[in-house]
């Protein structure tokens, strides 16, 4: 990985920095938790961390709220990005909450005892926020084994038939739904270093197939490259090369989240997503 790649992507990401030190979802937009937390991780960025600390709620969560809807999913990223007590408060908030418990049904079967974590407070649990919660707990609060086991159990329950994940529905009305590259990559970040585990093996095999099929998507490539690198998979080099090529051609359409994941995948920020074993 050349420093030039990381520098180019970081420069593009910097365009999304808002005057208050945080990062918006695109250049020129106000700061929000998710791009700010990702940028803090990618760049080791002090002002971004300061923005997160300033905007963390007393209960430890990071929210993006409109009306009655509170998106709390970025709390996990903030837990990893923040340092010290603030990061611990965010991790505690994750460990103490779960998604809403919704009854399973023949139409949409799942394990109702494993709701995982939601995008928005009080809602159903989905794969991406659950994966990020598991990753944050494994890094920041590894002693929260019940919560971690809950999350990995949920990911096992929602795994698509044959391996990998989509947003979080395995079967709907008898139809087996296909996995997608980006949520599979996020889940593989959460499942990292679980060598020998069948779920981990199926997930990696699926990710190796999907990133190639979905290589026109910058976000997919960026998260996939990060997941493959963290899992020390041989495909990481090819995936990163595809990431560099797509970035050079499209600059990921200015999506700060995709750029930040790409900066993480190609730079030193990836070390912060590694789980100690």
């Amino acid at each position: 990985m050349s420093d030039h790649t990381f520098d180019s992507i970081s420069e593009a990401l910097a365009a999304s920095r808002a005057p208050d030190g945080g990062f918006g979802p695109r250049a020129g937009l106000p700061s929000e938790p998710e791009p700010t937390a990702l940028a803090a991780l990618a760049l080791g960025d002090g002002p971004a961390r300061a923005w997160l600390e300033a905007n963390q709620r007393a209960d430890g969560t990071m929210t993006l709220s409109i009306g009655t809807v509170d998106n709390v999913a970025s709390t996990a990223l903030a837990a990893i990005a923040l340092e010290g007590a603030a990061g611990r408060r965010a991790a505690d908030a994750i460990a103490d909450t779960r998604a809403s418990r919704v009854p399973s049904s023949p139409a949409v079967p799942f394990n109702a005892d494993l709701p995982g974590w939601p995008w928005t407070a009080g809602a159903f649990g989905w794969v991406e926020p659950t994966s990020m919660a598991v990753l944050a707990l494994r890094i920041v609060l590894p002693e929260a084994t019940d919560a971690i086991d809950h999350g990995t159990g949920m990911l096992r329950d929602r795994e698509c038939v044959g391996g990998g994940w989509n947003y979080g529905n395995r079967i709907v009305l008898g139809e087996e739904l296909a996995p997608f590259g980006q949520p599979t990559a996020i889940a593989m970040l959460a499942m990292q270093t679980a060598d020998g585990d069948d779920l981990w093996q199926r997930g990696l095999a699926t990710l190796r197939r999907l990133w190639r099929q979905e290589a026109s998507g910058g976000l997919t490539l960026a998260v996939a490259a990060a997941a493959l690198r963290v899992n020390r998979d041989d495909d990481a080099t090819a995936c990163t090369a595809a990431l560099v090529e797509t970035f050079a051609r499209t600059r990921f359409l200015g999506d700060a989240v995709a750029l930040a994941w790409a900066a993480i995948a190609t730079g030193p920020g990836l070390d912060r997503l590694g789980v100690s074993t």
Partner: protein
Amino acid sequence: MTDPFDRRTFLRRSAIAVLGVTATGLGVASYVKRRQVPWDREAFGPIPEARVALVRATSYANGLEEIVLDGLRAVGAEVRGARVLLKPNLVEYDPGTTINTDPRLVAATVVAMRRLGAANVIVAEGPGHRRDTQFVLTATGLSSTLADVEAAFVDLNTDAVVARRLRSHYTALRSLALPRSIVEADVVVSMPKMKTHHWAGVTLSLKNCFGCVPGRIYGWPKNALHKVGIEPAILDVAAAVRPNLAIVDGIVGMEGNGPISGTPVASGVLIFGNDPVAADVVAARSMNVDPERVPYLVEAGRFLGQADLERIRMEGEDPEREATDFTVLPSFAHLKVGSLAEPVPLPDAPG
């Protein structure tokens, strides 16, 4: 403000409505009279004349631009000098079926709008299942098709947002995050794929408005909307977006287990409307679905647009004569024209 309806209440009342239709023949009129008024009267004035054109179109390949131009003229679309936003249905990518509004129709509409004098035409969508918009945009071919007509695309999942107080109250949401591009457009055109839907019966221009709200707030899928009930959310979101025009892509639609896992059906029609409710009613009828049995369409007809087929000024073909019999899931058999099936309570959609 009235109490919002949760999904179970909505379904129960909807079931009552349908039973009322099938058992007594009284239609929805007597049913709605008993209902509350879950919208601010001052925000929704009298429903103006609804004009809908149903046009035969059997191919995306040839002459689409002229067909779109004629369709828009037939419904009196006025876009001269306007900032126009086209909102296609671009939810997911599966090469084996027809989930999304066809890119060639979107491009033809861009050109037609310009020929009608639009000052600016952009295409915008916030995919609801796939978080990687760039992938969906590229894989579906929409990216290259828009490049051919030099039209800009806005990802509504990452656009600036404006908090809008809801003026209808079918859900407990109270306000909604709307992308600035939607709010600032003079004319919003909802361009759905004509599809059946496994939780709502049919998905057309009103349901297509779900794609207007940003996933970075509501999630992927936009489950904060599922949580408050899909049908009530369709009404509140559509009432907040208030599309000015509808163009329904029924050249090839989807039947069965839509909106993702259904089967393509060559229905060979395009439907244009200056009133999205009216366009959806005509589209439903052309799918051999009785719009009076689709609860959210009936409700929308109370305040948002014209749901009475008899009061819609029709241009072009007759939706009954041109109807293609779309297969629906057994749970929606009661929606079909002439069906004697009784409504079946659905399980809650996760969310």
